[in-house]
């Protein structure tokens, strides 16, 4: 451990005293924030581009740039989520849930400041886990097998459906299951059968997540905004964008819980930043005394979701380094870049090059410092976005949605997907269906499908392991409980049981 701290110190010192390193991390993080902010450009895409561009650079510089890009992009998505209700990357859908209402209430500056601090602290917590528990945590990742993944996917849809549609969980779940259904279109992983494709090559490839995301959040938001004749004017934000220490300290419990759960979600292979945000949001809501505020503009909700998704970044790097298994899609690109640059991550890394893990930690610290600086400095300039007249801003956003949808795969078909899902999203929003579970459903659909069938194939149709394995047991109990709490009779029953055993409560705290 002492050796580790020494390595870390050396790594940090080397980076901070090298002008080029500081310069690279600065522009890479800034570019990451921009990539994250633009709908349709995600952390994965940004990392892929940077991996190509940094090919000729020295490995340590190239990896530094990639880390800056990764941390920056996951953070950057929160800016557009708060300002425009358009999450820049799928990971930030939960941030929009409370961030945008806060912005509408005239607290843009404060919301962005709080989210920035959340992102910074989340990354730091994840980084601490990376530094000290990497070898141990990485082994836990292997406990997640097909059975666990199936329940995890169900949990994601059920929990986000419940959280986003507070007054009507049924609609949240319907949205989530529609998302799962959308994910079914295209060739199935197990037998390569083109489902719901009807002979169209583009449908055989399935709907790409990004055009769906851009449509459901971007284009449908555009329809909502442009529909009304009156311009919903945002009060000019006079609030401070740099939160005081006391303001942040109030949320210390949320920050720690979100940081740890986000890191853990990051570690689990294939489950990325988005689940980190959702699980943290769920915990925060369960712990909160002001549950009703969630979704209406709750700082607790905002800081938890941002802390959670940022903590997942170092979390996802842990298995990349120690097992050569990526924890998320952007982490997969990072892994490829590491291999290309001659670093072989894997079980041996703690033995062959123990210093490298700490070099990465030092890079994450630097990238975190960069988002803190940029996050707080850029808040004011970004607020100007809200002052641009709607008729001028919206066509630009539509052009970006179109280009963003196209840029992912260079398919014109994706522009149609964006438009189609935009209209569908608009209709569903008018009918009071939340959109975030739909997106999470599209993300988790393949995971659910593959792992359920794979698990059944492994057990020859037996359901036993799905219910008896320890992690599975915990997961399905949570799911069952979430479902029951969403019905009307079950909470009432709980109250009755409590009253029967403890006697009626003195002051009604609300069940």
């Amino acid at each position, binding site marked *: 451990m002492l050796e580790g701290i020494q390595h870390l110190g050396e790594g940090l010192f080397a980076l901070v005293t090298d002008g080029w390193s500081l310069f690279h991390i600065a522009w890479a993080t800034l570019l990451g924030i921009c990539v994250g902010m633009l709908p349709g450009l995600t952390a994965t895409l940004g990392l*892929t581009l940077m991996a190509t561009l940094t090919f000729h650079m020295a490995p340590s510089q190239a990896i530094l740039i990639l880390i800056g890009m990764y941390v920056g992009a996951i953070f950057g998505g929160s800016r557009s989520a708060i300002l425009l209700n358009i999450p820049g990357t799928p990971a930030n859908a939960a941030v929009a849930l409370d961030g945008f209402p806060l912005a509408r209430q005239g607290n843009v500056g404060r919301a962005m400041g709080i989210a920035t601090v959340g992102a910074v602290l989340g990354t730091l917590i994840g980084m601490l886990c990376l530094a000290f528990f990497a070898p141990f945590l990485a082994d836990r990742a292997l406990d997640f097998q097909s059975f666990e993944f199936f329940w995890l996917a169900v949990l994601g849809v059920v929990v986000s459906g419940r959280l986003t549609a507070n007054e009507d969980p049924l609609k949240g779940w319907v949205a989530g299951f529609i998302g799962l259904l959308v994910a079914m279109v295209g060739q199935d992983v197990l037998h390569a059968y083109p489902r719901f494709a009807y002979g169209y090559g583009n449908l055989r490839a399935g709907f790409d997540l990004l055009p769906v995301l851009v449509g459901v959040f971007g284009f449908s938001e555009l329809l909502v905004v442009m529909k009304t004749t009156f311009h919903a004017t945002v009060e000019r934000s006079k609030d401070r964008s740099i939160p005081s220490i006391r303001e942040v300290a109030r949320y210390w419990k949320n920050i720690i819980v979100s940081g740890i759960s986000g890191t853990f979600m990051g570690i689990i292979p294939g489950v990325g930043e988005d689940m980190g945000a959702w699980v943290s949001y769920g915990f925060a809501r369960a712990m909160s005394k002001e549950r009703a505020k969630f979704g209406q503009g709750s700082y607790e909700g905002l800081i938890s979701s941002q802390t959670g998704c940022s903590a997942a970044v170092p979390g996802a790097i842990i298995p990349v380094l120690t097992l050569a298994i990526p924890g998320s899609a952007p982490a997969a690109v990072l892994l490829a870049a590491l*291999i290309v640059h001659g670093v072989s991550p894997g079980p041996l890394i703690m033995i062959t090059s123990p210093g490298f893990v700490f070099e990465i930690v030092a890079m994450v610290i630097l990238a975190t410092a960069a988002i803190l600086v940029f996050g707080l400095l850029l808040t004011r300039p970004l607020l100007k976005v809200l002052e641009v007249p709607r008729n001028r801003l919206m066509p630009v956003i539509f052009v970006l949605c179109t280009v963003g949808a196209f840029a992912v795969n260079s398919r014109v078909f994706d522009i149609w997907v964006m438009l189609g899902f935009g209209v569908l999203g608009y209709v569903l929003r008018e009918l009071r269906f939340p959109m975030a579970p739909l997106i999470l459903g599209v993300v988790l659909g393949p995971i659910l499908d593959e792992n359920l069938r794979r698990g059944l194939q492994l057990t020859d149709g037996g359901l036993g392991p799905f219910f008896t394995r320890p992690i599975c047991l915990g997961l399905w109990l949570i799911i069952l409980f979430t479902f029951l709490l969403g019905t009307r009779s079950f909470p009432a029953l709980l109250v009755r049981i409590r009253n029967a055993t403890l006697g009626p409560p003195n002051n009604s705290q609300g069940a």
Partner: protein
Amino acid sequence: MRKAALVFGVSALVIALLWGCETREPLDYAWTPTRPIEIIVPWAAGGATDQVIRLAATEIEKALRQSVVVVNTPGGTGSIGTAEALEADPDGYTWTSGSVAALGYYPVLDMLDTSLDDWHLFLAIANVPVISVHPDSDYEDFGDFLADLEARPGQVSVATAGTASTGHKVIELICQATGSDYNHISYDGGNPAVTSVVAGETSVTPQLASEQADMIRGGRLRPLAAFSREPIEIEGYGEIPPVTNWLPDVRIAMDYFGIWTRREVPDEVIETMQEVWDEYIVGSEILQQYTLERGAVMTPYYGEQAREAAWESVKSDAWILYDIGYAEISPAEFDIPRP
């Protein structure tokens, strides 16, 4: 605002500089590309194809002094990206990539109407599949695995990267040679399949050595046999015996990875790329390093040599997929003879 604009400007400048270094003295190739060349990788970033092609791309970049952009277009078992290259203008600026055998099974699986004749092939390396188990497995050697396959038909779980993946074809060829059966567990890519054996979810994986190398070196996987005629060497582990020690008659076709472009591209593009292959790929240090670490073989072929090599893989793959019932159209209908 001004500060932001400044930082923005500076980062734009850096990017411009990164580009700028490319222009040096003129080259004496027949073809001088004037804009970036695009190589489509029809698989996800970070996968086996992606890794090899990105390395090859750096060499081509060095040779032509023009940036080479690798674009990942996954989906449809690689057919979506390949179809895109088939429809692109034949000007030498759009290439696609992958495992060459795929060009044979796309028509047979009714995914894409193409054949080797549509393309100019430039192959870089051949990846060797390795049959591996968890270190605690009861199998002492490959013979034990074969015995278990026969003793418990359809029960031994084998993890592959999915239908028509290399691992899938390898295990089918083994079963065809021995007349046994297995429980096929497919994953979304080679790395998750390998991980499942490390985690103990499945018993055996026949995926590419390149996907297993780190785990083998780290003692998380134990290789039983390489699916080749010669033993293969993985740096930091040692030698893996060939499968022919146990199954001398099993049909083995190499899995060649490379890039290809449409047959109709101008001759000077092909001539130039052939020179690039001779001067940069054959002696490429980064590719050699890659093959050493990942148990792969350098196969820098083009022209007739590439076609002959590829034809063997195409025949083998198309027929095994037909024999096991995945392909409904007989390869004979596409003039692919049985190997």
